[in-house]
């Protein structure tokens, strides 16, 4: 993308005004997306995003500039702007010598998006539409989206790091609307991996479509969700987002550093039952949050955050690790060349326990079974979180009974972690997610086995 010697000159130039650290992050991304709605392929979109972000750090100040001009002149102008932003004072001269990092790929792509015809991509949407509509006569509307991207990144910094990575992702999402006597209901499902078009050889798109349709159909018979606190069982692979939001964010070193995490100063302490282990792993092949290098050129890795209930470590990016004089953990990520990196998760999950998932339901007298958790958000300072329930059922006398209408579920992250009293042995990864910290979206994965939380508040309307 950019010549080795140009990068070295640009980095030296960026340090001219006295910066201690400079970095070039260049990106060239091609993407295709197609949408189907109301039975029609609405439109195919091709996108190209290409540019570089240059960061200069001096003391506690970070200067940042980005440009779509990847010529040496364009890069130097951005380097000057970033250098000036980081420092108003004078500086010296420093030369930079780059060493290329060995390639680090997680997973293998066999069918690159640019080798697949647009007709084949659009055909996936037609299959999804057909499968959802034939799931039941009450299905009145279907919308679906296909998206792929091939992103090449290059990261070079004044500490000599030169890393290149390529990320290929393919995504399918579907939503269905069912109409019944009591109004309309919606169902949603998605499929996404850090691979190419082989995604559709590995997974049955009809099945994904049917799941979304079935969810909407089931909810036609749903009654209002209850209101108040009760035990909640979360199905394997359907609620990992809870741990991403309610625990993961609080373990990001930037939030911890500013005292806006409930987990500040608690490394080494017991924060969960002894059967809880929480991991963030960017190296899981093909998973939605998989990366070869993070967006600061640090090789991705597997980090144990909570081990047998004990808080073992936070997640780190370059800046926060530098401040603490410790190694990075491969968690410096950003949305694009237009954004500064910060501490971000990759694939975050709770590992298997020993309980039989059926026993977990059987031993719950009255509660809620969540078969699909929706989106959510967390206040990292307080740990309070909210999640929507896309598909949920009542548990009565140890059996899953009636479906429930949509409602929110609220609780407190640290408390939930301590309130998990049963953990299944049926671990699954969940749907592809997008984490939106600070307004920047990055792809993330999550997972968990079936588990029970002693008490969560269900925000329905039924008493």
């Amino acid at each position, binding site marked *: 993308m950019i010549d080795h010697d140009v990068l070295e000159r640009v980095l030296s130039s960026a340090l001219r005004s006295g910066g201690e650290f400079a970095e070039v992050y260049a990106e060239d991304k091609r993407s295709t997306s197609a949408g189907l709605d109301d039975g029609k392929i609405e439109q195919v979109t091709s996108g190209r995003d290409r540019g570089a972000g240059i960061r200069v750090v001096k003391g506690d100040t970070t200067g940042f500039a980005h440009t779509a*001009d990847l010529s040496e002149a364009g890069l130097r102008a951005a380097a000057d702007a970033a250098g000036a932003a980081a420092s108003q004072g004078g500086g010296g001269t420093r030369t930079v010598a780059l060493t290329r990092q060995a390639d680090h790929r997680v997973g293998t792509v066999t069918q690159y998006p640019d080798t697949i015809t647009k007709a084949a991509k659009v055909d996936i949407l037609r299959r999804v539409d057909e499968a959802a509509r034939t799931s039941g006569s009450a299905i009145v509307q279907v919308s679906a989206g296909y998206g792929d991207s091939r992103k090449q990144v290059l990261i070079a910094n004044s500490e000599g790091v030169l890393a290149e990575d390529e990320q290929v992702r393919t995504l399918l999402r579907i939503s269905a609307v069912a109409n019944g006597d009591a109004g*309309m209901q919606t169902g949603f499902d998605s499929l996404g991996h850090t691979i190419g078009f082989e995604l559709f050889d590995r997974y049955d798109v009809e099945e994904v479509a049917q799941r979304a349709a079935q969810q909407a159909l089931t909810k036609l018979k749903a009654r209002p969700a209850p209101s108040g606190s009760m035990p909640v069982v979360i199905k394997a692979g359907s609620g990992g987002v809870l741990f991403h939001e309610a625990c993961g964010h609080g373990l990001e070193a930037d939030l911890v550093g500013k005292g806006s995490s409930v987990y500040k100063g608690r490394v080494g302490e017991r924060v969960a039952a002894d059967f809880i282990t929480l991991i963030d792993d960017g190296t899981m092949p093909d998973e939605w949050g998989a990366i070869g290098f993070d967006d600061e050129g640090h090789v991705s890795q597997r980090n144990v955050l909570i081990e047998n209930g004990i808080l073992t470590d936070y997640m780190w990016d370059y800046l926060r690790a530098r401040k603490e004089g410790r190694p990075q953990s491969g968690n410096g990520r950003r949305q694009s060349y237009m954004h500064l990196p910060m501490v971000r998760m990759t694939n975050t999950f709770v590992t298997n326990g020993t309980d039989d998932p059926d026993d977990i339901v059987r031993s719950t007298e009255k509660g809620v079974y969540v078969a699909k958790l929706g*989106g959510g958000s967390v206040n990292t300072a307080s740990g309070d979180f909210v999640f*929507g329930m896309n598909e949920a059922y009542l548990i009565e006398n140890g059996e899953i009974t009636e479906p429930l209408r949509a*409602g929110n579920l609220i609780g407190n992250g640290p408390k939930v972690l301590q309130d998990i009293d049963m953990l299944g042995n049926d671990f699954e990864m969940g749907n592809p997610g997008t984490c939106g910290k600070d307004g920047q979206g990055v792809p993330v994965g999550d997972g968990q086995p079936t588990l029970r939380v002693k008490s969560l508040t269900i925000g329905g309307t039924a*008493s």
Partner: protein
Amino acid sequence: MSTARGAHAVDPALIELADKIVAQAQAGEQVEAYVSRGQETSVRVYEGEVEQFTSAQSEGIGIRVIRNGRTGFAYAGTLDPASVDEVLSEARDNVEFGTPDEWAALATPDGVPVQPIDLWNEALAAYGTQSKIFLAQQLERLTLAADSRIRVEEANYADGSGEVAVASTTGIRTSGRENGCYVSIGTLADDGPETHTGFGFAVDRNPGDLDLEKAAFEAAQRATRMLGSTKPKSRRLTVVLDPFVTAQFLGVISSTLNGEAVIKGRSLFANRLGETVANPFVTLVDDPTNPLAYSATDVDGEGLAARRNVLIEGGVLKQFVHSSYSGRRAGTASTGNAVRGGFKGTPGCGCLALQLQPGSRSQADIVSGLGDAVLIQSVMGLHSGVNAVSGDFSTGASGVMIRNGALAEPVKEFTIASTLQRMLLDVAEVGGDVDWLPMGAAGLTLVVNDVTMSGD
């Protein structure tokens, strides 16, 4: 329509580029080019020092091609000539894969005159770097001074300016530029092992007019007000939505009034035009031509004049908002409500600047007349707990109980739930305290009866 929104100020090269693309249209083809360029600055201050300073420029082009009812689109985040040529050929190529849609077409000028609104502020354009840093530092200082129990998580200043040119083979030709700035602050208040958060912000086109004191006061109040908060008991009661929460609530309502959602069977208000859907004193207007609105604009995302539309009047559903596509398909016309997120996307349909017709009383007067109620200071999880298709409404909330006409103890970790249909009918009062927030809807205090609160 040829609209020159302060066109003297827009780089003629952008307009020329849009014209040049349109001129390449082939027989039987509709072509639209959307060309934009922008600049932004953002400063983040922490403990008096600059933590981040970003200075960025971006540009791009999006091209839409329609032929025989099929639409193709492509974009690139650069205006470099080779890339622009590639965008046009990709958009053309993509046409082949769309399903023919008899209503697909670009907007055509509809004769509605564009109302001039001044969206550009010279003082901001000339504002210096050090002054921007000072604003963020000053906001941090004012906030810390507002209450000794407050910590500041971050203080931000940000501004942006953009210029856009849109042209089409159907006769749309418009260009304009706008700028704006804001400050925001995040606060923390420690409460034993717990921490409460708050935020405040101020928005203006002129940095000198940013109300830092109000931002500081609100950020401190939002966090400290929650000190000692507990989880309430579950019950049904009246809720008083703070202006910021009302604006978020209107954002949810807006998707039910979207003409595209209606024609595609995704609105709970489809087939209900002319019916009473809200309490008779609810009048809801979408008016992007009001310069006080944060999202004010003179033209919509397809280049048609933005206009004032009354959606609910006296509780009766009067009309939906339409883009040219949804209007054509619904057998009516565009209401000037095409929305567009920039060069990377094609226009959709949506409300641009919603406002409830205000009542007369302040929040304090409203509270003084209530017995058992709760003031909702903030909500969380609106996007996950509200379904605009079914109308189910459930959101996490925090706030302050109201007892015998006065604010009482703070409460947190509960949800409020109802349905959108019922909430509109259950509106008991609309406040007179209009707050022009940096959102697609204006805020004011709103009282809604009979909402389920779930706590312990």
